[in-house]
């Protein structure tokens, strides 16, 4: 059996939830068979690309696909937003990585997803539902327009609390307010699962600390290989240093040092910004060159073959 011959990382579905959030469904039957809630993949867009970790938002064993929900925040995720169309291929996708979430015997669970964390918390909510737990979903979005997957969550949650910052749909407030509502309504919650930006997960862990409810968070720090080799993803958990890629990505939220995590996440902010600016600039230039060339073609000045040799936007980037 050839493993990767079965997958060339082809994109089979794309859905845009908003200007910045998009969904890609990638064909990889073997990974779809192996994936479990809580795991992640590392994706490379092209040969020159960086390796970026993305949490698996869903997997379909019958269709043989892996679903990723991506927020265009950096250079690579924006470039993916621009280039990943149905039928195109990723250069590489490796996984499923990390220790799967332990779907415990908890009887009543709150699954919290904020922003980008909404998608990856879905397999866990579904996992708990399948294990027979009473699942309360708490989802946070900035406003009504950014809401996605409400129906998917309704299908696996016994209760769903939608929170928006401006109150345009659901209740007005943050996911922590949603957690408070859930805690007020139920005094027998066994576990809380929270996925989202570090600052949100920190707040969720604080919200449950007093009541001593087990709170699991999924961290997604900077990493290169994802196999425990580089140590870039180390996180302070209690008094120990753990590698998110092989010891996680799920950790006890009451023990994770979120401040440390947030500082470490900022490490490449400056170069990332530079890379993005350079990329958007070169895109703009390519578009201009492209338009000019088409114009010239229309006027019959250029042979078609020359058109195929548009400058590579990365070739003459400064400093390269």
């Amino acid at each position, binding site marked *: *059996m*050839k*493993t*990767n011959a079965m997958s060339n*990382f082809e994109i089979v579905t794309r859905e845009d939830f908003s200007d910045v959030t998009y969904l890609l469904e990638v064909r990889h039957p*073997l*990974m779809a068979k*192996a994936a479990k809630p809580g*795991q992640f993949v590392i994706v*490379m867009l092209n040969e*020159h*690309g*960086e*390796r970026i970790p993305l949490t698996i938002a869903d997997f379909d064993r019958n269709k043989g696909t892996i679903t990723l929900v991506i927020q265009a925040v950096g*250079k*690579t995720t924006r470039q993916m937003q621009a280039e990943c169309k149905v039928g195109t291929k990723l*250069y*590489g*996708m*490796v*996984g*499923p*990585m*990390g*220790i799967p979430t332990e779907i415990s015997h908890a009887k009543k669970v709150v699954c919290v997803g904020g922003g980008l964390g909404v998608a990856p918390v879905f397999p866990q909510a579904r996992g708990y539902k399948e294990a027979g737990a009473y699942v309360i979903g708490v989802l946070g979005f900035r406003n009504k327009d950014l809401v996605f997957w409400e129906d998917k969550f309704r299908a696996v949650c016994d209760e769903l609390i939608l929170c928006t910052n401006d109150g345009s749909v659901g209740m007005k407030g943050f996911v922590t307010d949603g957690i408070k509502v859930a805690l007020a309504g139920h005094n027998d919650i066994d576990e809380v699962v929270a996925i989202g930006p570090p600052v949100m997960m920190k707040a969720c862990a604080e919200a449950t600390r007093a009541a001593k409810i087990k709170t699991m968070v999924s961290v997604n720090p900077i990493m*290169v*290989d*994802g*196999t*425990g*080799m*580089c*140590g*870039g993803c*180390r996180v*302070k958990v209690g008094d120990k*240093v753990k*590698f998110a890629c*092989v*010891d996680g990505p799920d950790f006890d939220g009451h023990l994770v040092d979120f401040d*440390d995590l947030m*500082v*470490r996440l*900022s*490490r*490449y902010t*400056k*170069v*990332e910004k*530079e*890379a993005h600016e*350079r990329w958007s600039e070169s895109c703009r230039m390519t578009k201009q060159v492209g338009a000019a060339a088409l114009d010239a073609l229309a006027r019959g000045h250029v042979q078609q073959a020359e058109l195929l040799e548009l400058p590579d936007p*990365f*070739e003459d*980037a*400064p*400093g*390269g």
Partner: protein
Amino acid sequence: MAKKKTIRTIPQERTPMPEQDPQVRAKNFEEVACGYSLEDALRESERCLMCPDQPCVSGCPVGINIPGFIQKINEKNLRGAYDILTDTNLLPSICGRVCPQENQCEGVCTVGESLEAVAIGRMERFVGDTAIKQGWVNIPYIEPNRFRVGIVGSGPAGMACAADMAKAGCDVTVYEAFHQPGGVLKYGIPDFRLPNEVIDAEINNLKKFGVKFECNTLVGRLFTIEQMIDEMGFHAVFIGVGAGYPTMLNIPGDSSNGVLSANELLTRCNLMRARDFPNFDTPLPIGKRVAVVGAGNTAMDATRVSLRLGAEKVYCVYRRSRTEAPARAEEVHHAEQEGVEFHWLTAPVAVLDDGKGNVRGMRCVRMELGEPDDSGRRRPVPVAGSEFDFETDLIVYAIGTNANPIMGQTSKLKLNKWGYIGADENLATSVAGVFAGGDIVTGAATVIQAMGAGRKAARSMKAYLGIRDAGLPYIGAEGAGTLFGIDTRERNFARVRVA
């Protein structure tokens, strides 16, 4: 017969290796050692006494017929030299560069008792590079059998094992988690010591043997070792995934931004090409002043990579003295020539940050050597009151690795108390048909040791699968030739077809 050589008649001085000027090379990623010319190699081949004891052969972990290939060089028969080398070692260009020859073949060389040892590694590299340039490849006649062998990890152990199993006629698939094969040769060893083209050439040779490489495949998580045997139809599996998991110092400030493992620095620079940022997307902002902790080969690579990435000052901090440094003497020497500043007998006690989580300096303490410890090296003891601070904005830990946990997490393989895979003297693990070797069994070691382990595991696998091993080649009195019409270099079930 030629006149018998004696220690007095051979060229007394070792033929020097042409090198790039230290000032120039500290700014580029071109190879430091440029390699012998034919004249250099011929002169050096004169220095081998062809002594009957052949201590070099037993000093080589894979037992290369060293006098044999040197003799062929001497006869200007480079193709013949290549044939002899590839009889036991499929990766001469790699081994000629990265083997610690001074502790192996050259360390026991008879000439070395009174003069400088014969430069075996340099000649090996010369032959290997010539073969790549000429496009020589010894494709053995392979008699396919029904066995399928899976290899986990495409580093030196996996490649050596794959080559032997393919030669034995097995259908071999090598799995690699990264997007390119090569393992530590690709991500770890920098281009100026081992150019990527050399690795790719050797990998292409393996492909010509019929070995299949599957990248982007994380064995253990995508499928388990047990699944490979039970469901995927592999008759035997070799695990050569390396140690990986880098050790941190566990001193205050460890998690500050600007503290990273040598693995991360090297992977970003070598495999991900961060040195060509922004042409490649992976970033690697290098500090003005870089401090590398440790003095092994990886530490030397980290210091020299930092220089090439534009650091103004690179320090190497080690708690023992130069004599105890585990790096090859040549590497320390190269680093020193290029301007790395060594601080022996110095141990870090804390990383100092700027209040925003970024590294601004390091607090160290002076050490002195006390009584010998378990490793036989004198134990470093801190000198009371000798703490001092110095300025640095990037700290690289190159202080060794621990066992990678993925195999243990995902299989029933028995691990030893340090978390490495338990294997017997034949490298068989606790699961039938599964063998393991290299760093994941022994802890961090060298490339050639890993290759030796890969070949040893291949021998055990062949025995396990019941493949007959012819063992030694038939070398008659006339040396290589034919016997009953069969090429006498026939070995390991394969006839070498001389093109």
